[in-house]
């Protein structure tokens, strides 16, 4: 589903590489944790998958597409197959829960009928039924993140990328979000999650890739967080 071949990324303003000679593969339906100290290249990895950044060298394949050969105007179509969740939720404050999720379908031109059907279904899935008319500032952090997950998942992507989705949440709420991501993973969606949350990684027992200074230092199936900060 995601395949990196000897990928190096050097930002123009930077001396050392953010990712160095990274080779790895994520299978369809896998759940992968990306761990590593701050600045080790986790977010860079996710941005490369989205083609928000281009690798300095190396090949990246996502959902069967060679990103190097994917023309710019086709990038939106790639992103429709990838859902993304961030630490800071990134909801639109002037739209209701329903509108925030519907927005993701509206702007890719989905018909109203499909929106009316899919948005309530996904809100149900993330456990927000009955709250669809609330504004984001009337929700707890955990609920806001559920809205963000619903928005990322409403178009049934092949891949869900999550960059520290529990970074702003307390441990109990984090567990709820992890259960949700696990449920999404069980529908066949590949999940890649960058995190600093040791207890979550240790509890979930999924594949763990550890980066340090842009290099892959550990790739372990059913792994643990593995290092102390």
């Amino acid at each position, binding site marked *: 589903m995601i395949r990196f071949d000897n990928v190096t990324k050097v930002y123009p303003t930077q001396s050392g590489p953010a990712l160095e000679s990274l080779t790895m593969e994520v299978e369809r339906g896998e759940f992968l944790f990306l761990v590593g100290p701050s600045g080790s290249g986790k977010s860079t990895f996710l941005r490369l998958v989205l083609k928000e950044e281009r690798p300095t060298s190396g090949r990246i394949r996502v959902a069967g597409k060679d990103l190097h050969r994917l023309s710019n105007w086709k990038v939106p179509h790639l992103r429709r197959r990838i859902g993304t969740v961030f630490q800071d939720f990134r909801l639109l404050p002037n739209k209701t829960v329903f509108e925030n999720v519907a927005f*993701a379908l509206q702007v890719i031109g989905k018909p109203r009928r499909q929106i009316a059907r899919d948005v309530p279904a996904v809100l149900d899935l993330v456990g927000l039924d009955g709250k669809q008319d609330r504004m984001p500032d009337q929700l707890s952090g955990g609920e806001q993140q559920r809205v963000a997950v619903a928005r990322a998942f409403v178009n049934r992507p092949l891949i869900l990328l999550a960059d520290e989705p529990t970074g702003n949440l307390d441990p109990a709420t984090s567990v709820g979000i992890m259960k949700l991501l696990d449920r999404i993973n069980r529908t066949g969606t590949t999940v890649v999650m960058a995190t600093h949350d040791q207890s979550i990684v240790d509890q979930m027992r999924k594949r763990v890739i550890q980066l340090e200074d842009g290099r892959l230092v550990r790739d372990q199936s059913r792994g643990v967080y593995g290092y102390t900060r």
Partner: protein
Amino acid sequence: MRFQYVFSEIANGLRRNLTMTVAVVITVSISIALFGTGLLIRAQSEATKGYWYDKVEISVFMCNAYSVGANCAGGEVTDVERDTVRETLEAHPEVSEVFHETQEEAYERFTEPLDDPVAEVITPDQLQEAFRVALVDPDEYDGVVSAVAGLPGVQNVHDQREVLGPLFRLLSGFQVGAIVVAVIQVIAAALLIANTIRLAAFNRRRETGIMRLVGASNFYIQLPFILEAAIAGLIGSILGCVAVFALHEVAVSRLLAPNFTFTAWVDRGDVWMMVPWLLLTGVIISAFASFITLRRYLRV
């Protein structure tokens, strides 16, 4: 494509950037008004030229008893000399018609305005008989003038274009000046629009960021901004057109045309002919300026 979304985005955008939108509307309307004035002056000078071209003629004045000059050495023009001039003119390919005016006819024309004290001291023999020559193409007067200017009995050849020349040059000068100012204004408008759109894109970076992330196409992301600019440009150009109509009404229809009836003036129909071009210019400049700006600020 969900037009409802696009239109609500445009409405929101216009409202959120109201001051900048107003600035764009004003700048566009001023540029379009100036541009329209340039076109109006252009149309006016065309009308003036067209009117006077039909009336342009060459006058060939013959020697009288009092004439001095190389061709008048023999005193008053003789019948032979007169016939030679007439034949030369009638044979010339650029000449369409030749009228002969005798000294008596010149005197009648001269004394026609009654109560002219000068007329009382002048006698027909002091005036000159002349040939008045209409041309096939008023621009081709040079050949006709040189064909008869040197003949004996011809005192001088008078070409009306020499009188109208400075007027035409003045009109052309106005025309160029108006267009230069208009172009500068249009550039200023384009820069202001670019800035407005950049600000609008910055204000909405949260929305556009999410749109990019969920895979909205560039076209879809940029369309509301471009339409917003185009609408502001359209409103501005409509105001600019209104200004041109007002200028035409006040300056031409009320002030100039009634007082200077001896020449042709642009009418309202000519102004209507300019309207599509003015609207198109305003809208295209706005849309194009925003398109260029967005290419830089809303990249994938």
